[in-house]
């Protein structure tokens, strides 16, 4: 079953009845042009609401840049946010909703599993943004309007040029098993959606034993890419096996002696998922924000700000600041989303064990 098939099957019964009314309402409103993008939101009402509350997973600085950019375009709308890792963030919002507290307008998650779970729970407001016409169907929820793939991050291998001799430099994914790197390898912890994606796609490529072999390297696990590259740049680790391109460019620009390797088999990739939250306290502002985020203006922030650097999935997206487009990389996405979501508990158990937790 492909992703769309899975999502349709899994969510149709739960989401469709809940989605029907707002969906119909959303469709009855005509899209209007604001600045250079289309929105279904009533902008006057959104400005009257005066606020948008955003829950996201990116770092404080990244969220700050994003919200400040929105505020520049819509100065009458204040922004506030909560930032947590996706797992903790999702736990917080579900705990709040189960207690009858609905204080969130826009939710952005870095893992598809909670995004689908939230859809099953009727957590997303169905808002079919006019900007979705620029997105392929496979990058939207099924049915469309719950959440959308707002941008893509992908990871290769990175190593410290001072600590790793050129002849030892990794070139393929199998090179991360080289015993010469033992005790000098880093990756992310099981909290990371990207780490799950990498674990999944490389397991499919190289078999279930691949990561067990990797465990012999005694890898060190961290929460965020900034920590991985901070340590790699300073030589605390010699190689990072979940080297997100965005992190690499940020630290390479600082002058770090690090190298990025794109193995020929491909680069594990994952998206972030954004949508309007059901029963949002500022529904029009929320719609306006999501339309803006999916439009060229918002996508430019996600893609060009180096603290974020998510590749845009818009079909008309320009190249990234590095001059490369997503299409220039061989990206590895899970092909069977049903299997991918089901594999999450297995991943968490195995990865915790690999990381010594």
């Amino acid at each position: 079953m492909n992703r769309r098939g899975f999502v349709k099957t899994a969510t149709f019964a739960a989401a469709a009845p809940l989605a029907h009314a707002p969906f119909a309402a959303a469709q009855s409103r005509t899209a209007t042009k604001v600045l250079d993008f289309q929105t279904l939101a009533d902008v006057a009402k959104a400005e009257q609401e005066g606020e948008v509350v955003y829950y996201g997973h990116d770092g404080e600085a990244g969220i700050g840049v994003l919200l400040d950019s929105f505020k520049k375009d819509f100065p009458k709308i204040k922004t506030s946010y909560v930032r947590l890792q996706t797992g903790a963030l999702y736990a917080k919002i579900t705990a709040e909703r189960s207690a009858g507290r609905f204080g969130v307008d826009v939710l952005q998650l870095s893992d598809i599993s909670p995004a689908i779970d939230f859809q099953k729970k009727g957590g997303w407001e169905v808002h079919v943004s006019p900007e979705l016409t620029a997105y392929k169907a496979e990058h939207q929820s099924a049915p469309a309007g719950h959440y959308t793939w707002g941008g893509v991050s992908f990871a290769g291998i990175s190593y410290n040029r001072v600590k790793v001799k050129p002849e030892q430099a990794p070139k393929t994914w199998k090179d991360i098993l080289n015993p010469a790197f033992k005790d000098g390898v880093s990756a992310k912890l099981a909290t990371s959606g990207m780490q799950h994606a990498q674990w999944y796609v490389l397991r499919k490529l190289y078999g279930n034993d691949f990561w067990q072999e990797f465990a012999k390297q005694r890898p060190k696990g961290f929460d965020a890419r900034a920590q991985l590259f901070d340590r790699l740049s300073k030589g605390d680790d010699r190689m990072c096996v979940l080297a997100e391109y965005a992190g690499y460019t940020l630290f390479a620009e600082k002058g770090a002696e690090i190298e990025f390797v794109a193995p020929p088999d491909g680069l594990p990739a994952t998206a972030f998922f954004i949508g309007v939250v059901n029963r949002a306290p500022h529904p029009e502002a929320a719609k306006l924000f999501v339309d803006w985020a999916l439009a060229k203006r918002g996508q430019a922030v996600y893609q060009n700000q180096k603290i974020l650097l998510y590749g845009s999935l818009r079909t008309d997206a320009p190249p990234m600041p590095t001059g490369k487009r997503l299409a220039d990389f061989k990206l590895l996405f899970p092909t069977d989303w049903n299997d991918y979501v089901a594999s999450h508990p297995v991943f968490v158990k195995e990865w915790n064990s690999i990381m010594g937790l």
Partner: protein
Amino acid sequence: MSLSAVRYLQRARSWRPGPRLVSVLVGGGAAVLVLYPIAYLLQASLSVGDPQARPPEAYGLANFADLPRYSHIFGNTLLVAGVATVLAIVFGFVMGWILSRTNVPGRAAFEQLMALPYYVTPLMGALAWALIGSPASGFVNQLWRALGGDGHLVDINTPWGIAWVMALFEGAVAFVMIGAVMKSMDPALEEASQVLGAGRLRTMLRVTLPLVLPGVLGAAVFVFAEMLGSFSAALVLGLPSRFYVVTTAMYQLVSQYPPRFPTAAAMGVSLFAVMFAMVWVYRRIVSAGSYATITGKAFRPRVMDVGRLRWSLLGVPVLTIVYASFQRLTTVFPRVDNFTLANYATALSLDAVRSALWNSLLLGFATASLGVVLMGFLAWLIYRSRLPGAGLIEYVLMFPQAVPRLVFAFGMLWAWLVFPIPIYGTLWLLLIAYLTVFLPLGLRTISGVILQIDRSLEESAQMCGATWGHRLRTVTMPLLKPGLVAAWLLLFIASVRELGASILLMGPKSKVITPAIVESWFSTSSELTAALALLQTLAVAAALAIMFAVARRAVQAGGE
């Protein structure tokens, strides 16, 4: 109107809440503050259905049965907490002895330096030591290799390194406690020992140590509790060596999807058992008559003493942080092109600094001000009121000390989410959380002073016909003033530094600074984190300086 009705009205008019009623209300209220979230925590630890379901779908003991899987983490926790406690106690005892029993030159400067860790967040200490002692990039090791050495000279990413940092930055309370006991001890016995021919060292080991032993043990129990809940040092220094303690493991468990709240709660509750036993020992020590060792007076002389010297005596770790905050990529060998002001520019542009710092200072002020009133009354209630069950109240109020704040925060999150008054997501919730988690700290600080006030003073006032309220206002409170001021300062600083409870309870409009600093360490760089930590420390210093200036002026004005 009948005579009985007139009498009733007269009685009603002259009615004042008696000590019993007020005590029951305040003591009961404080107990509810503590027990309400604990009930939710216990409930979560027994949840065996969907880990995200609230309320739980089914109950059982499976989470506790699963805990042996994490025995290595419990072992790690006990190891670093034990080593850090021993280090803190030995260090506290030796320094306390030197500073209170010898005439070593520069004692005043040493005392100032010893108090420095109070004013910085433990994360800053951990970060500083990571920059100093990491095997590859640590400054000491870079210098070592530059001088021709091989490998590394020191490795801070070991259990011993973690315990060292914990002892330095979170165990300073041991020095304060033990030092105060020594200062309040009658020196006649030591003088007698020396007159009889014993040397200084022999006198210290054979006379001083036995005399302060109850105090040392009391401090050890208190510090051990602090160390079990320690988070920052283990987070910064433990992850690079795959070394987890209970708090860092719980943080990971609840950050994963789906969050494993029940397992984390079971871990926390199991720590209850350890800490409950420790608190029981602690109370045994206190009730054995050695209460002076845990006195609030212990905190008084040093924390009140905020002179210029403290801020000029910056230790190596603080200087390291200052240096790192001006670097693009920190290295021990300075390069002109590596210096930057960008970290401060970014830090000052972040919402974390713009609003969270202000919120932190505001909360610190409110927690400290309300806290001294609440905790002062509770201390009086427990030690002076003779109310039945006062001892039990003390036990209950010590609970927050017996469990890591990160765990306690889950209980508070669930408890206050369903509370009918909408305080969730506001600064009010954080204020309640801080007042709850700092009950043991405030209580310990103030109760020590209460225990040193002779009961006969209050009894004299009573004999003269003063009501209990009048006695409290005119006798007890003025005598308690120094202890209350000390408690205010401790609560203020502890609130601004608070991390564990704040992480989960912050809302979009109720952000505080320390979680933002930790988050910065996760998602940006050590250099930006260093800048943020320094800004926090400077803000606390400025706030305290202003408050001291205002207080001094008020005192001078009152004296004229």
